[in-house]
């Protein structure tokens, strides 16, 4: 099966639907694979010592989807050329307990599954155009500081940005 058919990437507006790990598991499952690793990121109550009631995720959808796909391709390339990978991220106003991101990676063997899943979520966190605004119980809101984006083949940090 061509590699592009073994990758699924989604941006899901929380107003339309919640992320469901079952979708991720169903997509990557294949009778040739013995190992599936799934990472689930969930909105939690505390952040930097403050009580959090929710997170607003802003996203540049078309580029986010392109970054997800390149992240999946790179993880597959690095860990098992036959693997399958699923990446979905929520956007909009999420409450504590809502799922923000689900990544799944399946391979014949578990080591590739773990490593591929980890590589994909790291790329989502550090390379995808997604912004988190935390809403605190005292009514305050704050955008997270985050990580500057740098073009993939830039050699001198911000030079290429």
């Amino acid at each position, binding site marked *: 099966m061509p590699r592009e058919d073994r990758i699924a990437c989604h941006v899901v507006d929380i107003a339309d639907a919640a992320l469901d790990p079952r979708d991720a598991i169903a997509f990557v499952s294949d009778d040739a694979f013995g190992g599936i690793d799934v990472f689930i*990121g969930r909105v939690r109550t505390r952040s930097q010592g403050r009580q959090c009631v929710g997170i607003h*995720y*802003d*996203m*540049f959808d*078309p*580029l*986010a989807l*392109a970054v997800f796909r390149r992240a999946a391709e790179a993880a597959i390339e690095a860990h098992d050329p036959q693997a399958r990978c699923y990446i979905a*991220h929520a956007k909009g106003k999420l409450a504590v307990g809502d799922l*923000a*991101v689900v990544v799944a990676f399946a391979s014949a063997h578990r080591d590739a599954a773990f490593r591929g899943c980890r590589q994909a*979520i790291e790329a*989502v*966190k*550090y*390379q*995808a*155009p*997604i*912004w*988190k*605004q935390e809403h605190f119980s005292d009514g305050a809101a704050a*955008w*997270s*500081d*985050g*990580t*500057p*984006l*740098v*073009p*993939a*083949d*830039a050699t001198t940090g*911000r*030079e*290429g*940005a």
Partner: protein
Amino acid sequence: MNITLQLFGRFRDFADAPELHLDLPGVTTAAEFRAAFEAWARAHWPDAAIALLQASAIATDTTLLHARTPLPADGRLALLPPVSGG
């Protein structure tokens, strides 16, 4: 060049709309856009926005732009502050 600049994250707090429409004559590359837009921002935005701008990337729908990359013909760009997904 007529530019449509989409704003995201913290930049949304500095503008009334999610997009800026700017006419920036003589601008053809990402670096030229960055210089011209920073001049515009110094006239319209607070200092915090300028600092954020310097840590931000310029992108199209599909890729981040290098300094010398020509701007897309349709002039549609996105201004991307440091990211915090996942």
